């Protein structure tokens, strides 16, 4: 296990307009796009969605190559989905092909294409989000989007604090895991062979020190936070304010318009 090689997310720093968009807007935009995908009924809608996505990819300067690379792990799922839709979608007209227990209808072919395209677009649009937004920005945005929930007593501040501390310590704990594994290997521990029981047993020398060290860190961190006057979310100010610019508003309007448009097209069966 080359734990140290893990990079947090696929984020690639950049300065394109997509990178600079407010992360809140990007999240809302992505959600809007996904909703629109599910509303899309027929060719016209799909064409609009595809063109829009292509334009966004072009603007964000993500190479097609990296998109395809991101698709690799889902290839099998997409394939199976396509086939299942192809064979199992019932149709009204004459079957196009019919052999053994399989029958393929026009509807099946259409459904298979639509579904494959839809999943591919779904993944691509979320890919666009992770590629242009760091996990830190994502959690930051999520915190602010959840802010209204404070009214119904959701501990938004605590949740976001937890997420940001977690992100801060993930690399540290990965390194720690690596170190503990090496240290136990130096004492002849074997994480790579053996049967189920032996593997489960090998977890003790790894997880016990890992947990104790993690909770020791928690303890020390809590003291350090209190020393720096942390007393909950009340009366806190922030160094960095997120501010919506004209571009952000435009993007928001665009996202909403997209949903509405695709919804309307759907009603007409387009």
């Amino acid at each position, binding site marked *: 296990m080359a734990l140290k090689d893990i990079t947090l997310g696929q984020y690639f720093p950049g300065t394109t307009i997509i990178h600079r968009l407010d992360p809140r807007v990007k999240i809302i935009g992505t959600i809007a796009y996904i909703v629109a995908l599910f509303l899309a009924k027929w060719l016209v809608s799909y064409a609009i969605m595809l063109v829009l996505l292509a334009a966004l990819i072009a603007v964000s300067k993500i190479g097609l190559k990296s998109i395809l690379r991101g698709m690799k792990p889902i290839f099998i799922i997409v394939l199976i989905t396509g086939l299942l839709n192809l064979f199992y979608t019932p149709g009204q007209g004459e079957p196009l092909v019919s052999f053994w227990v399989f029958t393929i209808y026009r509807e099946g072919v259409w459904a298979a294409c639509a579904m494959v395209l839809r999943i591919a677009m779904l993944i691509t649009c979320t890919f666009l989000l992770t590629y242009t937004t760091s996990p830190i920005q994502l959690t930051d945005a999520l915190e602010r989007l959840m802010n209204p929930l404070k009214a119904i007593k959701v501990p938004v501040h605590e949740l976001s604090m937890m997420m940001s501390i977690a992100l801060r310590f993930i690399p540290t704990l990965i390194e720690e895991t690596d170190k503990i594994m090496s240290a136990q*290997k130096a*004492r*002849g521990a074997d994480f790579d062979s053996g049967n189920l029981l032996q593997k489960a047993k090998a977890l003790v020398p790894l997880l016990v020190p890992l947990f104790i*060290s993690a909770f020791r860190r928690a303890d020390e961190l809590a003291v350090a936070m209190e020393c720096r006057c942390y007393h909950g979310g009340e009366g806190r100010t922030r160094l960095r304010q997120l501010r919506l610019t004209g571009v952000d508003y435009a993007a928001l309007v665009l996202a909403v318009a997209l949903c509405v448009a695709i919804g309307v097209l759907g009603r007409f069966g387009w």
Partner: protein
Amino acid sequence: MEPIIETRRLSHIYSAGTPFEHGALVDVDFTAYRGEYLGIIGHTGSGKSTLIQHLNGLLKPTSGQVLFEGKDIWETKERTRQTRFQVGLVFQYPEYQLFEETVYKDISFGPHNMGLDEGEIDRRVRQAAQFVGLKEETLEKSPFELSGGQKRRVAIAGVIAMEPSVLILDEPTAGLDPVGVESILGNIHDYHQAKNATIIIVSHSMEEMARTVDRIVVVNDGKIPFSGVPREVFAHGDELEQMGLGVPAMTRVFHRLRAMGVDIDPSVYTIEQARDTILAALARKEGK
């Protein structure tokens, strides 16, 4: 002298093939001789930890060879495993890796993995505990309720119990008070003497190095620029300074002394040497 561990043109590249590629070791030829007490110094990130993790097969060389008793440790899987038992490695802050319910069980983890029988394990655990100065009654305690210094001893005992012929320690004295430092160094010395083991010790303290080791290997930017007995190594004062290392306090004082116009040999690095040199100089003056 007969070499016990050697590396031949050893290179190690982290995250090869990614934008974060980093060559941590470059064509390193390192030798440790049987029975010697060796020190490794180098500034942070120079590649010391990377080097020592190759010596017992925890890291695989990107290129080059690691030989233990003349044979490549990566020859077969079994050989790698055996090398891990023969070359004991104590990591930095080893007390954070304890996990068992009792000190006894923790020390016996290594011997158990070696597949020894209970009687032999028991003998080794007790002997290892003795080497590091742990009392019998401590063996039944939980390792977690011991003091920091005691935990460190338990962790070192856990490696010593495998009775390795080479014992490597990465900064074994970090964070201990002076008495703790002396006693851990004493424990290591005892093991060295009793088993005629090869000791390799990594440290940031030049004074400690000067006092304890027979030979020093300097690591800088993934290479070994020079090595030798402390006297030879500390003669490279300026170069060491440039590597961010420096020389022992006594050497600094004696260089100052010389700069003040006193005619004295500045190749002094421990307090005993300093004292004897001064006393000898005084005696000479008196004799005149």
